[in-house]
């Protein structure tokens, strides 16, 4: 109560200040005509430079600047029947570096977001084990833990583009990916507690959500680098990312990364669940389908310029993008400005980690001409990201998943940028 008059007083002062600025703005054209316009943002004292700003604790859990309000996940409403079994997309065009902010990691739910009190959460391990066990979150937090940066890509990322350019923005064509630092316990530690029977070859991971999401995972992968994570980017998992516990399956398709993980069953063969038969199998032109296509192939995309981030200035510009490979590390990224006729090696900056995004840059001068920009990732196994034409020659256009073809953005003479197919 007592601070209300102060707040009103401050607001009133701000209103008056804004009115004053509007008046100054109206004079701008005349000043501009004079040819030596001084910038009122410099010559006039600004509100934020005079009046007190918010004190500490006004924003006890911080949010981005209000001027970044368009940097949000967005969905494509026609993709799915409703929001509870849907996906939204990371705004890749507005990000930099390799870490995705937790609040912008794309969401994919199959039965809506499960909101679980960690005190109520349980993880059961059963099946072909010596001793079926139940763990609480407290138990898991007492185990030896590790920190790893990995990308998570939905197998259907770019899946809407198999038949041609369809969505105008890398948020929509490539935004089913994020890259964060996970903190968790190696799955091997948990399995060792329960003791695997010698005939255990596969695991089934099951979520606590209303979809009861379940997937089969080969034991060899589980013992290699799979984590059971409870934190991302230094804080608890976000609810939309599986709070309080999720699976982390490095380099493999996102559907395997079961969120709200509540049970792991060991068995001697895969379960053939709905997700691994009717979905996440890749229909080939001969009418047969590949199954267990777990690995995400090397891929890259230029995030700037792109349709939501057009070029605005002639002269010096920064082209940037991200590249990744589910098979290991990105060794090199090539960029072309002329639709694949000539390529140059981009500069990778920042950490180059196993099964993580890398950030690449090409600093270039733009004289206003039309550009066709593309990027091409090469990983440490020698795999070279193919063109869409090369990919379609083998896979046809019905496979939905694993579209890692080279993306083309057309930068028009005015800087407007669009998603195109080229031939």
């Amino acid at each position, binding site marked *: 109560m007592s601070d209300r008059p102060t707040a009103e007083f401050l607001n009133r002062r701000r209103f008056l200040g804004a009115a004053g600025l509007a008046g100054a703005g109206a004079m701008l054209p005349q000043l501009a005509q004079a040819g030596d316009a001084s910038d009122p943002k410099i010559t006039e004292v600004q509100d934020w430079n005079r009046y007190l700003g918010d004190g500490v604790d006004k924003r006890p859990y911080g949010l981005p600047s209000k001027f970044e309000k368009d940097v*949000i996940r*967005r969905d*494509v409403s*026609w*993709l799915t*029947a409703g929001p*509870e079994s849907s996906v939204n997309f990371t705004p890749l065009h507005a990000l930099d570096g390799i870490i995705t902010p937790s609040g912008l990691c794309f969401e994919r739910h199959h039965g809506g977001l499960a909101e679980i009190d960690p005190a109520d959460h349980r993880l*059961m391990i*059963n*099946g072909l084990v*010596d*001793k*079926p*066990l139940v763990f609480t979150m407290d138990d898991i937090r*007492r185990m030896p833990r590790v920190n790893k940066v990995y990308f998570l890509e939905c197998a259907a990322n770019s899946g809407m583009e198999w038949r*041609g350019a369809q*969505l105008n923005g890398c948020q*929509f064509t490539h935004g089913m990916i994020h890259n964060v630092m996970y903190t968790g316990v190696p799955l091997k530690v948990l399995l060792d*507690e329960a*003791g695997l029977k010698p005939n255990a070859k596969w695991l*089934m991971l*099951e979520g606590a959500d209303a*979809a*009861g999401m*379940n997937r089969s995972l080969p034991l060899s992968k589980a013992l290699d680098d799979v984590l059971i994570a409870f934190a991302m980017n230094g804080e608890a998992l976000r609810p939309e990312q599986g709070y309080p516990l999720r699976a982390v399956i490095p380099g493999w398709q996102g559907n395997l990364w079961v969120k709200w993980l509540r*049970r792991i069953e060991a068995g001697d*063969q*895969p379960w*053939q*669940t*709905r997700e691994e*038969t*009717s979905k996440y*199998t890749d*229909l080939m*032109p001969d*009418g*047969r*389908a*590949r*199954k267990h296509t777990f690995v995400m192939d090397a891929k890259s995309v230029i995030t700037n310029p792109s*349709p*939501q981030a057009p070029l605005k200035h002639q002269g010096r510009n920064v082209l940037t993008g991200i590249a990744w490979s589910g098979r290991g590390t990105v060794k090199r990224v090539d960029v072309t400005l002329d639709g*694949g*006729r*000539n390529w140059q090696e981009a500069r990778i900056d920042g950490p180059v980690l196993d099964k993580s995004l890398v950030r690449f840059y090409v600093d270039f001068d733009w004289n206003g001409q039309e550009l066709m920009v593309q990027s091409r990732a*090469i990983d440490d*196994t*020698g*795999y*070279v990201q*193919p063109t869409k034409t090369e990919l379609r020659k*083998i896979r046809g256009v*019905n496979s939905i998943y694993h579209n890692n073809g080279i993306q*083309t953005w057309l930068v028009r003479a005015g800087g407007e940028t*669009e998603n*195109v*197919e*080229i*031939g």
Partner: protein
Amino acid sequence: MSRSAKFVLAIMLGTTLLALPAVTAAKQKLAKANVEHPAPPSPTKLGLGRAALPQEIEAWDTDVRADGVGLPKGKGTAQQGDAIFQEKCAACHGEFGQGVGRYPVLAGGLGTLKADRPDKTVGSYWPDATTAFDYIQRAMPFGNARSLSPDEVYALVAYILSMSDVIKDPDFELNEKNLATIKMPNANGFYEDDREVAEKQFWKSNPCMKDCRPAPKVTGRAMSVDVTPDSKTGPSVD
């Protein structure tokens, strides 16, 4: 007994191997410091978690595998499933499994998997009938999961299979003994991931860098398809 003994041994060996460098370093340190008490041995297990009780496992271990392992006792016919389907499923999937809006189509589509626009339904695409049981039991009806009895799930699976003519007799009784033996039309339509062989041309030692192709022409544009959400219609962050 002997198996668990072997397991404990394996764990001890594993732990010993992992702990070896640390133990060696610790021993050196001890030797230098001339301390009397050796470091305590590493525990073979963390000792975290507790035994899962049989009734707890029974409550959660409801998954059904392709070979039928996990199927509960129960029975149902397509005729019975029809009535349940109309009441609990048709609002999303349509009376005949044809789908409503963008909810999944469940029936039809046989023989379309090579077509330009294939219909991937339970009948045309799914390799195992058991998968329908597992999925319905865990996730359906959408918004009221885990509310169906085993008999209702058998009946629904029978009805869905009858819509694709996999089950032809509306009174055929589906149960825990025969569900895994149902032969699905596309059972043999799948093969293991062969990308590393079938796509080995994507592993290239020297990708072209100069004069790699003729001048490109634009052959398709997302702008002309015009299905991109307008950025102004994005969700509010207020």
